[in-house]
């Protein structure tokens, strides 16, 4: 408990304190004096753009992962035989055993201009579709690996297990008798799904979204390896505290996702996500 307080809360507090200092532009020195001017810098168009871009990506990844994970989790929880269940469970979590950076680079290659995906599109003569997608402004780029679309695909893949597992847990906790009761009261499979299964599994979706959302929000490896030159929060923090030596701005920038996540967690708790973990 003491350890937790010192190491964890302590470093967060150090972060908070640093965010109230500022960098003297001429000398390049950090002035240890309470000020809100660093926070004001967050509202510059560049920084607002970074926040918007990152939050938008986190939201898109969360929604896509929820949509991909639900059917999978549903199958694992309700239809798979015990053996198949073990197998699928391992299959879902297995990627987590390998290095995350290796997987990101693997995707970089898969999505590259000469990568396997482009190759497939060419093989079936669908090059036009790929080019069409890549020419969409804002999310397109010269190749999948150099576009926000590629980054989105990689994020979805990387965080997918974190969405599947809580949804599956929530689905398995729905007692069979509730489904029987629904059927007994006249509901067919679709009605039971809509009225009983979905609302009871929803906290699991929210729990999973905590992971997918916060992990995307803070990640800097994927935006650095894939996508275009536009910054994400993680990259911005990384560069501010590194080459720029602007620790206060990096700290203030970090407080952004912290505030967003605290709000998110409070809402998630209201929706019962913590009971589903």
């Amino acid at each position: 408990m003491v350890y937790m307080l010192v190491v964890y809360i302590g470093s967060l507090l150090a972060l908070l304190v640093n965010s109230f200092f500022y960098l003297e532009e001429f000398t390049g020195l950090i002035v240890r004096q309470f000020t809100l001017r660093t926070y004001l810098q967050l509202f510059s168009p560049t920084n607002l753009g970074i926040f918007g871009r990152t939050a938008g990506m986190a939201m898109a990844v969360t929604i896509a992962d929820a949509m991909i994970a639900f059917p999978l989790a549903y199958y694992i929880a309700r239809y798979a035989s015990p053996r198949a269940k073990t197998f699928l469970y391992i299959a879902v979590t297995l990627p987590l055993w390998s290095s995350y950076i290796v997987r990101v680079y693997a995707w970089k290659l898969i999505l590259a201009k000469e990568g396997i995906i482009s190759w497939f599109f060419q093989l079936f003569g669908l090059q036009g579709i790929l080019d069409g997608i890549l020419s969409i402004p804002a999310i397109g780029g010269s190749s999948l690996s150099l576009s926000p679309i590629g980054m989105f695909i990689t994020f979805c893949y990387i965080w997918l297990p974190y969405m599947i597992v809580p949804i599956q847990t929530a689905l398995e906790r729905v007692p069979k008798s509730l489904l029987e009761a629904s059927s007994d009261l006249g509901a067919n499979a679709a009605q039971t799904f809509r009225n009983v299964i979905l609302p009871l599994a929803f906290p699991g979706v929210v729990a999973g979204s905590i992971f997918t959302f916060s992990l995307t929000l803070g990640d800097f490896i994927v935006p650095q390896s894939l996508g275009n030159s536009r910054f994400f929060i993680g990259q911005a923090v990384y560069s501010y505290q590194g080459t720029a030596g602007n620790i206060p701005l990096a700290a203030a920038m970090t407080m952004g996702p912290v505030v967003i996540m605290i709000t998110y967690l409070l809402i998630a708790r209201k929706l019962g996500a913590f009971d589903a973990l």
Partner: protein
Amino acid sequence: MPTPAIQFENVSRHFGDVKAVDNANLEIRDGEFFSMLGPSGSGKTTCLRMIAGFDRPTSGNIFLYGQDVSNLPPYERDINTVFQDYALFPHMTIEDNIAYGLMIKGMSKTERYKQVDEMLDLVRLPGFGFRKPSQLSGGQRQRVALARALINHPKVLLLDEPLGALDLKLRQQMQIELKAIQKSVGITFIFVTHDQEEALTMSDRIAVFNEGRIQQVGTPSDIYERPASPFVAGFVGTSNLVSGEIAKRITGSEEMFSIRPEKIHLNMASTEPEKDMLCIDGVIRDVVYLGLFTRYLVEIEGGSDLVVVEQNLKTTSMDVLSAKGQKVRLYWHKDHISRVGG
């Protein structure tokens, strides 16, 4: 003879080698309170689940008022169930739980909430509509489960050990209430229980199950007074089973019979039996004083023991306890024995 509410025709349900229900034939009459009684694993719950449609028979047919429903899914059967764990939807209010069946049918909100209020009155929970199931006690949840089933006016209501989780006092109160509700709504109730006292108190008729087979179907007094098999004699109340040499000495036949402990009279003097009375001599081996009555264990010459229960109308604990070791003559009316075969 009117069409039975439920009819089983050679119904079997096998799980691999396990015969959960084996060749059951059964008729449950319209409007009766019918109990399925048996120990766990006897097949009673499987029968209930087959009536509800959660389980399908491996062979045989089930009829609901003459219609073969064996292969209909639960939601196409005009039958509702009160589950053992109540199975209330935790994310819905009491009101929405009770209105669930009506909502599925597409009834308007105002109409269904009007009916919910009537149901809440029937189960004596007025004003509970806005609570969540987690805010209710076991007994209250039980009533909600009942209301949720009854609001659909099913042709048959199934109750799967609904009183099992309640404490004794509440259970006795609910037994009376359930019976009263059944009388007032006039729906056929099928009640599954392992509690023989519960079955005897509430039922019009009882089917006793053991090892996947129906042992006997009859009114509570039939089942109690005339058990058809050693199992029924032993499972419903306590019974003395007598067979072989001793049976022959008493009745003149070696066939096994059962005699209830309270039907046996105990006489310290060896008086000659009256007409139609059967008798045997024995020695009191053990005496248990239970206040209202006393239980004697009497050893019969030749080895067998009989349990005898006598009310303490005039005797005190001192009197009965001193009877230990005494020679006694036991006698009972010949009509009180039940031949159980075997």
